[in-house]
């Protein structure tokens, strides 16, 4: 007997998402992940001052705003031909590390834990299903850590603000690195907090995730998907330090190779957009919204690398950096996020040790009349790319492909599903009236639909059909 399950909203994510699943004999046979929010950032950016992109694009996402400041600053540096000083890179990457820590702690405790732990302190955490398997002592301990963790994610943002001014939506990350100069007082302020956060990750977060994994071991066999992994590289290519985490790499079940950005295309066959073609290079893509499009079901587009869908994020990075080899599944993804938090705290410690106080990395920048640039960076959820064009000193084109666009892409004309869609196919559903499995698998990807569904980009230089 087939049955359709619709979950809308998928809560405990950033933004709005609907999931539409067909099951047959209690097994998932087809899936559509749907982005349910549209703002149109790429169109808003056209005509603005290129410098404003750094603060403006952060407003795409409240939980990962620093990620967009990283990508837009790099895209502008590319367009303006600016090579930041190493001190600028270190300081900027420290801010980025703070965001990884804030994000991973919040995603694990506030978004993931309520899937597996019965938190009884407040009716807000009353679940729809009853698949809770932890012994009371472990359940109570992790419930308490839900609340204890708030202090540490807050402290991660405090570290971010020491260099970045405020969070969310920092002011510090900019062309050339950051806008402030390190001082001994700032360095020790951050270092003392970092020690506390690292201890929390070691002593609470990692044991908690392994305890959950022990009692929900079937999730090591669920939520796998295609197994194609991609990273643009993270905390890599420092002049003196080399690579502290991972280089730009892609892997399929057959091979591992260096990442080459010319292999990225974005498809819109099943997305609410129209364009001259349904498949485009990121720096030439021009689409307009069209909710009446036949077959379309989501605001999320479908990025592909060499025509294939790829998974991005902490698990992809850990595997591609050679530090994790247990497998690809919902539980591996969740464990990877906690292990990566530890890795990031170590990277941040090394970067902090490089800081020379008092170095001013800022200059007065001149805008070119005509330029193009791109900034590719791996952020909390995976590979993030910004592509921009400048004409008459204004932004004439802006294109963003976020990590959640990779993971929650729609299907394409070659018959490939999106990464998360494929991960759900074949999943056995114990109780179709109260399905716990779907939300758990989807949240293992840390969906950020505020990010994935902001798109829309008519470039002024290309003629398109106007819809309104």
């Amino acid at each position, binding site marked *: 007997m087939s049955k359709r399950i619709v*979950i*809308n*909203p998928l*809560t*405990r994510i*950033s*933004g*709005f998402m*609907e999931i539409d699943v067909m099951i047959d004999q209690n097994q998932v046979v087809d899936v559509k992940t749907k982005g349910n*929010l*549209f*703002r*149109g950032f790429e*169109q*808003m950016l056209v005509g603005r*001052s290129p*410098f*404003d992109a750094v*603060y*403006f694009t952060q*407003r*795409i*996402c*409240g*939980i990962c*705003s620093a990620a967009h400041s990283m990508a837009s600053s790099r895209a502008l540096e590319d367009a303006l031909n600016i090579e930041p000083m190493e001190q600028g890179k270190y300081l900027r990457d420290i801010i980025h590390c703070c965001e990884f820590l804030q994000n991973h702690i919040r995603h694990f405790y506030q*978004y993931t834990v*309520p899937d597996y732990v019965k938190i009884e*302190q*407040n009716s*807000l*955490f*009353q*679940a*729809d299903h009853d698949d809770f398997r932890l012994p009371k002592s472990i359940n109570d301990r992790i419930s308490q850590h839900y*609340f204890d963790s*708030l202090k540490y994610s*807050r*402290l991660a*943002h*405090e570290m971010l*603000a*020491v*260099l*970045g*001014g*405020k*969070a969310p*939506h*920092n*002011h*510090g990350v900019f062309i050339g690195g950051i*806008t*402030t100069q390190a001082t001994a007082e700032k360095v020790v*302020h951050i270092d003392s907090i970092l020690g506390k956060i690292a201890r929390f990750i070691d002593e609470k977060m990692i044991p908690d995730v392994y305890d959950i994994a022990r009692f929900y071991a079937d999730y090591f066999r669920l939520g796998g998907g295609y197994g194609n992994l991609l990273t643009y590289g993270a905390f890599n290519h420092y002049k003196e330090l080399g690579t502290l985490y991972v280089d730009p790499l892609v892997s399929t079940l057959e091979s591992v190779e260096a990442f080459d950005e010319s292999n990225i295309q974005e498809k819109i066959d099943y997305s609410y957009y129209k364009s001259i073609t349904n498949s485009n290079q990121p720096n030439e893509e021009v689409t307009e*919204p069209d909710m009446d499009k036949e077959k379309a079901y989501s605001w999320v587009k479908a990025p592909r690398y060499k025509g294939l869908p790829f998974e991005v994020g902490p698990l992809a990075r850990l595997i591609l950096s050679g530090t994790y080899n247990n497998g690809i599944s919902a539980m591996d993804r969740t464990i990877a996020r906690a292990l990566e938090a530890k890795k990031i705290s170590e990277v941040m410690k090394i970067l902090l040790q490089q800081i020379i106080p008092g170095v001013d990395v*800022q200059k*007065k*920048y*001149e805008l070119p009349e005509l330029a193009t640039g791109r900034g590719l960076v791996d952020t909390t959820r995976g590979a993030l790319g910004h592509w921009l064009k400048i004409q008459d000193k204004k932004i004439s084109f802006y294109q963003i492909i976020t990590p959640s666009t990779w993971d929650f892409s729609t299907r394409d004309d070659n018959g490939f599903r999106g990464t998360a869609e494929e991960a759900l196919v074949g999943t056995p559903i114990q109780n179709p009236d109260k399905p716990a499995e779907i939300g758990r698998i989807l949240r293992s990807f840390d969906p950020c639909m505020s990010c994935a569904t902001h798109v829309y980009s008519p470039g002024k230089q290309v003629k398109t059909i106007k819809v309104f």
Partner: protein
Amino acid sequence: MEGQILPPESLTNEAIAERLTSTALKSLKKRTIKKKNLIYLELNGCSGNIISLLNGQNPDFEYTLNSMVDLKFCNSLMAAEGEPAIEKLMKAMDDEYILAVEGAVALKNNGLYNIIGSWQGKPLTGLQAAKMLGEKASHILAVGACATHGGVSAAKPNPSQSVGLQMVLPDKKMIKLPGCPVHPDWFLGTLAHLLLYGEPETDNLDRPLMFYSTLIHDRCPRRPFFDRGIFAEKLGDKTCLFKLGCRGPVTRVDCPTRQWNGHVNWPIGDNTPCIGCAQFGFPDAMAPFISYDTTRVVKNE
């Protein structure tokens, strides 16, 4: 000091929030206040305000949740999902509740650019939810720039036709807390005031005076540089950022004294101009955010 909430300006950054917390705690113990129901609705935006609220320190989120309000619905935090989550939202309307809304209301395609869930098999738009919940709420808080006036969601050319909450609830009184995002103290302090003493005193644009009374420029620690005409020429300089496009002179909020994230820093402290994120009209009225010389001749603007 007990009971005194509106501060003399000389008091320290954390003083207001701390006094509110301790007073609330005492009142709860004495049972002079009762926890109220809160519905937290996220609409067309980045969900950055709820993240900022999790950064609350005094009071913190745990205290807020366990001692101040019963949070009945919150897309970012609640365990329930799908229609059972929306059912909780519908049920919460049976009792008295405070409604907090972040994000703008998208009007395009009759609201279909922002679907917040499914109810009885049909899509529930942000537009429908805002109207329905707003009509019955005992108090309404518009939280962050998108909710107070459209904010970044309504930036030119406003592809989703987003508007602030007041536009779809023209007759309803609401407290507006602009900011991108809102500072946790602005929200939690206002909420505490509602619970303890009723509505806080607001200005003619519905902003609580205890947070939004004074121009950033009037309390800026770099004001002496402005007065002496010493201006920064690039980001990273330690002097007045006015000529880089600082919007402190038009933005009313207490960032200079309160500061952010544990009260450790703020945009001007980071050697960057204020971009007016807590002022109505942000972002378009505040753009360009950064100019290297605002005395230049402006064309085509």
